[in-house]
């Protein structure tokens, strides 16, 4: 009856391909097509500049509060770049660059962030879910989708996103466990951005890594430099291949940093230091990728300027389109839409009450 160490399966790797200066490790460099690399770069620039523009719109009162993504572009973009259109993306709410990559219209994001539900529309060709704000609660929907994919014998995958805070939620553990037990094609992508509003990563868990949580579920887990888009892409590609081949789920921890506030209603100066932000500034995913592509001769100053100019034009067009569209939206009567397949009598009656209330207000309002 000896006492001995149990040898556990599922070792946890750590992966980093680009160094802080964007210098690539040639042994680990993935053979990605130039087109893909340039498209990813453009998508990162778009995500960053759109964030900046939305922040300015918010400060001007032209949209409501929203969750910025700056600093995390590589972590979510690199992951969805390994998906195909028929796969499912199950977001939380800090994956804007990935949503744009998957085909969500920028104008709809603006519309949504300005309080119009219409902005959450998902076009029929996109297999993505809308935002899920209660932290971690969407993880199980990816497990359900993945179960259904396996049941229907498809080789699609369901990839879900969440933050470091979500790994403290029960839904995360139940989702990981379900996916491992049923060996379904689910991919769990944690954007560990170090902060859950004001709570630092060290106060979420004693664990040395988040990736190691996969070990308890007998699931492959990997920790990647989340500010290195090549590392994120490689890890996601491996996970996608595993899932498509019927070899079950994967957990990917992308170590990154939320450079901005949790949402525009938050003031991070209350809980973190400028030094810490400066430390992560040096690890900026966009400049590292830019240096890599420049060294690869895929980019130069002119090309970068052109991309920046194109992106600004695209953003301006989206802002204009959103503001024009919003002029046509906002009929309060629409609040009764999409409640049920068929409107039950209580809603029919209440819709009439609202119509009457609006008519009475209009009548009483001073004319001229």
């Amino acid at each position, binding site marked *: 009856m000896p006492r001995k160490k149990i040898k556990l399966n599922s070792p946890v790797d750590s992966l980093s391909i680009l160094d802080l200066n964007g210098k690539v490790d040639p042994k680990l460099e993935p053979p990605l097509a130039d087109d893909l690399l340039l498209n990813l770069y453009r998508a990162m620039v778009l995500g960053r500049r759109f964030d900046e523009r939305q922040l300015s719109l918010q400060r001007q009162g032209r949209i409501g509060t929203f969750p910025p993504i700056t600093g995390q572009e590589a972590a979510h973009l690199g992951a969805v770049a390994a998906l195909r259109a028929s796969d499912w993306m*199950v977001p939380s709410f800090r994956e804007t660059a990935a949503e744009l990559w998957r085909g969500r219209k920028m104008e709809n994001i603006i519309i949504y962030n300005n309080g119009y*539900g*219409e902005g*959450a*529309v*998902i076009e*029929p060709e996109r297999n993505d*879910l*809308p935002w*899920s704000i*209660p932290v971690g*609660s*969407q*993880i*199980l*929907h*990816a*497990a*359900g*989708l*993945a*179960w*259904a*994919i396996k*049941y*229907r014998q498809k080789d699609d995958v*369901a990839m879900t996103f969440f933050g470091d805070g979500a790994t403290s939620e*029960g*839904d995360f553990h*139940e*989702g990981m*466990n*379900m996916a491992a*037990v049923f060996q379904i094609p689910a991919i769990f992508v944690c954007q560990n951005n170090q902060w859950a509003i004001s709570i630092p990563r060290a106060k979420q868990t004693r664990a040395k890594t988040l990736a190691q949580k996969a070990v308890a579920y007998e699931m492959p887990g990997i920790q990647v430099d989340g500010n290195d888009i090549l590392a994120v892409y490689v890890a996601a590609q491996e996970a996608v291949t595993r899932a498509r081949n019927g070899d079950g789920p994967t957990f990917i921890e992308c170590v990154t940093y939320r450079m901005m506030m949790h949402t525009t209603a938050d003031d991070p100066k209350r809980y973190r230091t400028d030094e810490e932000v400066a430390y992560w500034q040096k690890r900026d995913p966009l400049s590292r990728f830019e240096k890599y592509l420049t060294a690869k001769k895929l980019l130069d100053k002119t090309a970068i300027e052109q991309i920046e100019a194109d992106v600004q034009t695209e953003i301006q067009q989206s802002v204009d389109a959103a503001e024009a569209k919003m002029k046509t939206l906002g009929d309060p009567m629409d609040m009764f*839409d*999409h*409640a*049920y*397949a068929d409107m*039950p*009598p*209580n*809603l029919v009656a209440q819709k009439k009450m609202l119509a009457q209330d609006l008519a009475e207000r209009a009548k009483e309002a001073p004319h001229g």
Partner: protein
Amino acid sequence: MAKMTMVQAINMALKQEMAKDDRVIVLGEDVGVDGGVFRVTDGLHEQFGEERTLDTPLAETGIVGMSIGMAIYGLRPVCEIQFSGFSYQNFHQIENHASRMRWRSQGRFTVPMVLRTPYSGGVRALEHHSESREAFWAHMPGLKMVIPSGPRNARALMISAIRDPDPVIFYESKALYRAFREEVPEAEETFPIGTSQIVREGGDVTLVAYGAMLRPTLEAAETLKQKDGIEAEIIDLLTIAPLDDALFTASVKKTGHAAVIHEAPLSFGPGAEIVARMMEKAFYYLEKPIARITGYDVIIPLFSREKSYLPDTDRIVRTVRKTLRTPMMA
């Protein structure tokens, strides 16, 4: 036609829908090999295999959250939460997602799932095994809440719930599971969700009940007829939300008197909504205050005291007599 218990009738509904539609998946704790702790899913595992009668890990949130994903994909999950007392662990999945995915996604995604769960007291059970919390679910926009009162309507409502395009919470009274047998035709029967039923006609007083409270209400009506010559009209709600107020408001316009019977606590219970609808739609026909015969606003006591908490025939009879005798205000 076979005479069967409510357990057998719901089992029959599940078998018939699973045989007809491969989108229907049963999942939950002990629903597979064991056939469910109340045997509602008995025999499904043998007939439809492990994949369609999924024994899940012990995780209520997981069961419901996965069901939501399965439903979004286009399947028709029927999940079992073993006791409604454990369904609060998955409450947020229903409130935050199942009930509003249609709305949030602007109609692109829907959640046609059924959450089956046993509720109600009267079976000498442990704590957390006897509550009636239908008001929680009935209060959620986007959700439907169904409570059958016997084998035949349970079978028909279950088929309708599975086919419903929106999420349905399906409460099954433990007290009714094996309380009596009823003829249930083999041929398919459905019953429209959102529709109540008159189960006894009468001109003196309107009694509104549902689930396990229907039987004592029917018995009370017999006693009132025999002993007092009072003819009660009884409405079996069957669906709590969306509430069908057409029959009970028409009835109270005729009788001028009403009582609502449920075992859920009094305050903010379904009775409050029913009384409010009667006030809104039949105020000028009411001759007396409307009575609510319900559980008290306490945790339902353990079974040594349970009888005094649950409305029974005697309490219904006495309360209806008092209601009819209450003098009109001067």
